[in-house]
């Protein structure tokens, strides 16, 4: 029997970055918000204080902060004619195990997408003609929102997260520092860029000599003490390098915990239900609205949380699965490309190179999760693709992230002995002399890259697992090869004695290999109703009181980390709800 809780103004499913940002906006607007998260309460001072040693085995290898695969797996296949089977270990789905989601254990890359990323189809057709955009495999579509429309909300997210960086373009003017290719910003970052470490120095010098434009990656690892617009204090990064897969003990990595929870948890009109997993939404009889969310609590009881407004801010896989399982909107059908839910799954197309130096001191134990240098000369549409067999590109970056000794034990030049005294000698030398160039490439949707409910496998609640069908588009494969070659040139210019390129896209895609963990799509946004599940305010076209927020809404994926864009979209949607929707509930966009 399903018990019913008292009705709320808003129910939010998933309290990660999106959920926390929206809950903050909506409770500040006076709405009564109940957030439901399947994770346990997790916070900095309680769970990852600075006195807890950053144990690589515990946090990074065994991934103690992550939700276990048994709670989150999906089935996977590359093509429609294969039978999908479940992934049984961590792979590309790296969800947080507690409230805050992956926003607690993430590295902290504080990017915006470029203006091109929101209009890939339109701009590709304008610059290169229709044939480039419609090659028979790609399924390009635009976001229905432009960079300029999103800019104020990017700015707000950066202020809340305290992102450290150096602007390249402010109000249309190039600053002469920072990224000259970035979309125009209304103002500089709230905190200055982190320091330049040795691997970055080598990269900057080499790319400058090559006529490229290196800059420091914007980080949600803060360079100095900071108070955000909510009044929450953050500390300065100590370059300890224990960020990705770790909680930050000294409040210098931005997270829902560090940036939002201190104010959110004080508000009497906010409630969070932890260890409660939403399985489906309930629909009104006329099918035009949803009436609430049904979850299974820690004791296994099924409980309904009714609400006037329902917001899905879970992981993109879960947003998609909840919609499919609840029978909301038409599922995508890859045979005729109709339907919207599950559509446009994409990943990222990654290549790059490992490199080793002989007598340098890279000293990787000094680092920060997002710290590195990047060039955007080969990202997005920043270079001419007329004579190239692909669209898009990659952010080509080097990282000064961490010096984790277990993980780094594998990073030795090819041919190095892997045991005995020779191994020890080599590791002692190359631990200090290893660097990497990572090409974080865009990913374009295909007609057959999608998600639906698996016909064979169910989770512990009896809900069908999500089935992922995906492989890289040929355009993306070609791009990855092109950018790998660029990274090899840079590595040689940096003076590396050993250069060993890699390209994840020269093989079939698999969920088992973490080339990146930026999976996106499934509930694409857009201004074109037949090809999008939510409108440009992430409002369901079919149920106007349902908003589906997060990377599930990205119709295409960029050569940048997604969190800043997730944050900006969440804030924009929350403002639209608070300013417009609650006064006159209904469709915010005609479609």
């Amino acid at each position, binding site marked *: 029997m399903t018990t019913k809780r008292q009705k709320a103004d808003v129910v939010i499913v998933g309290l990660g970055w999106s959920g926390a940002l929206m809950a903050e906006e909506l409770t500040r607007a006076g709405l009564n918000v109940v957030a439901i998260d399947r994770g346990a309460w997790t916070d900095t*001072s*309680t769970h990852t*204080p*600075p006195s807890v040693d950053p144990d690589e085995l515990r946090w990074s290898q065994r991934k103690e902060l992550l939700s276990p695969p048994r709670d989150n797996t999906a089935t996977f296949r590359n093509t429609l004619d294969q039978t999908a089977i479940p992934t049984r270990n961590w792979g590309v789905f790296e969800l947080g195990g507690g409230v805050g989601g992956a926003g607690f254990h993430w590295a902290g890359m504080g990017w915006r997408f470029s203006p091109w990323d929101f209009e890939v189809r339109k701009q590709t057709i304008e610059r290169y003609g229709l044939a480039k955009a419609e090659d028979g495999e790609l399924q390009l579509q635009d976001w229905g929102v432009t960079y300029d429309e999103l800019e104020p909300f990017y700015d707000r997210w950066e202020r809340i997260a305290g992102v450290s960086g150096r602007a390249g373009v402010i109000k249309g003017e190039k600053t002469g520092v920072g990224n000259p290719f970035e979309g125009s910003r209304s103002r500089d970052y709230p905190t200055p860029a982190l320091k330049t470490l040795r691997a970055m120095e080598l990269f900057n010098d080499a790319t400058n000599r090559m006529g490229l434009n290196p800059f420091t990656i914007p980080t949600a690892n803060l360079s100095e003490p900071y108070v955000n617009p909510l009044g*929450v*204090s*953050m*500390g300065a990064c100590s370059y300890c390098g224990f960020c990705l897969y770790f909680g930050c003990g000294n*409040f210098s990595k931005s997270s829902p915990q560090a940036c939002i929870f201190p104010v959110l948890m004080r508000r009497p009109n906010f409630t969070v239900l932890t260890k409660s997993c939403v399985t489906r939404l309930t629909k009104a009889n006329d099918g035009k609205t949803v009436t609430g969310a049904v979850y299974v609590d820690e004791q296994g009881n099924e409980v309904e949380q009714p609400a006037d407004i329902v917001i899905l801010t879970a992981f993109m896989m879960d947003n998609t699965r909840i919609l499919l399982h609840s029978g909301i909107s038409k599922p995508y059908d890859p045979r005729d490309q109709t339907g919207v839910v599950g559509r446009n799954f994409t990943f990222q197309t990654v290549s790059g190179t490992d490199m080793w130096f002989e007598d340098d001191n890279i000293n990787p134990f000094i680092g920060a999760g997002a710290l590195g240098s990047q060039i955007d000369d080969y990202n997005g549409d920043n270079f001419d693709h007329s004579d190239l067999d692909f669209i898009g590109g990659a952010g080509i970056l080097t990282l000064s992230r961490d010096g984790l000794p277990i993980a780094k034990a594998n990073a030795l030049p090819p041919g190095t002995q892997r045991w005995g005294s020779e191994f020890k000698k080599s590791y002692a030398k190359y631990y200090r002399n290893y660097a990497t160039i990572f090409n974080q490439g865009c990913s374009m949707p295909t007609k057959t890259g999608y998600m639906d409910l698996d016909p064979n496998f169910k989770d512990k609640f009896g809900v069908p697992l999500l089935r992922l069908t995906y492989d890289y588009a040929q355009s993306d494969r070609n791009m990855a090869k092109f950018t790998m070659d660029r990274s090899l040139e840079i590595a040689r210019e940096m003076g590396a004695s050993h250069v060993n390129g890699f390209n994840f896209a020269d093989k079939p895609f698999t969920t088992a290999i973490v080339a990146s963990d930026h999976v996106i799509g499934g509930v694409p946004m857009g201004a074109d109703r037949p090809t999008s599940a939510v409108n440009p305010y992430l409002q369901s076209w079919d149920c106007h009181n349902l908003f589906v927020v997060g990377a599930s809404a990205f119709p295409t994926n960029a050569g940048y980390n997604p969190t800043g864009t997730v944050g900006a979209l969440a804030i924009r949607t929350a403002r639209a709800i608070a300013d417009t929707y609650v006064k006159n509930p209904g469709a915010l966009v005609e479609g």
Partner: protein
Amino acid sequence: MANWKAIGGSVAVVAAVAAAGAGWWAYDTLETSRSDVADDRVTLADFKADPEAVARGEYVMRTGDCAACHTKGMGDFAGGYEIATPFGVLVSSNITPDATGIGAMTERDFFNALRQGIGQHGLLYPAMPYTAYKNLTDGDMHDLWAYMSTVPPVRNDIDETAGMRFPFNIRLAMAGWDMLFFENTGFDGDPVADRGRYIVDGGGHCSACHSPRNLLSAEVSSKYLQGGSLGTSYAPEITSNEYLGVGGQSVESIAQYLRTGTDGVAVAAGPMAEAVEHSLQYLSDEDLTAMATYLKSVPGSDAVAPPPLAADSLKQGALEYEISCSACHGPRGEGMGLLAPAFAGNAAMLAPDITNLSHALMVGGRASSTHENPTGAGMPSFAWKYTDAQMAEILDYVRNSWGNAAPPVKVEDIAKMRADSGARDKLSIPQ
């Protein structure tokens, strides 16, 4: 509020003294003509308040920090806060307008209780700071009464003294204490012109914690605001003394600390965090400025900085500090913005009583969380990581670096804190 625990404990001692002197009657302390201005007919449950008086009264309530002791998970002002004493447990009363609370009190009864410690069930224990509230003006009292009438009544029948052992459960015993230590007079200045002192000595009852107490638990007036021990914490000197007090701080920084819980150097934690959260953050800038100005005028102790310990003796502490403390407290003791306290220029860290420091190292702590500064960062326990001697080394280092100077920390004081707080021993390393 935790700081009452120590006072409550001493109260029981006093009870013994007073019991010995039973039969004596302190006519002066029980003379209630100051309450003549109050109505004696309408009960709190029936009182109809003027909204403006209620609004003013809420402010008086914040000043007096009533919620700190009278709200404990049973409803606002419904009492139930347990004050552990060596002689039993004292429980704070229900002060809502319910029949189980103070609903049957008249305004006169209310005045008698707050300003003279004469309650509806007998004499109050001085865990209730009527020794300070006696300074409240008639106007503030009328307003507070009006506010209390608007509190939602909560049914919560509390036997305040049930946990006190005989003879300490006899309220009449407090007559002896009152006779010895309670002066039945109102504020001796101009509550407007002397606004800072009026709040500090009246509703704010600052000296209840920040003045030392004698063996009979009465404040030592000659050491007014020069620091008081509260068992598991220490309320530091807050006088004009520049070495240990607030004499070296600007009025603005003191006011900022009181309003937000930090001035960017010190960070309120423990009982002071509660005072900031429940009370001080609600006070007006004018009042906080008046309090700060007054505190800077209070004559202080004669403590002066000793010569700092020799740098050679601090090397091991410096290493431990760098490893475990510097990420948040700064390599030069400069702190971390509003998040973690600085050691450089933080006079409260130099007090001869190191209870707050040893408690933070053993048990950890949590900064105050206020409207303006909500973060409330945590200080983790290092009991598992350091021995008592290592902690002493760390404290000697921070108390004698960056311009600081303080006498050496006694290892036995830290050992006592480890034992008293029940903190674990340092993690043993397999041999």
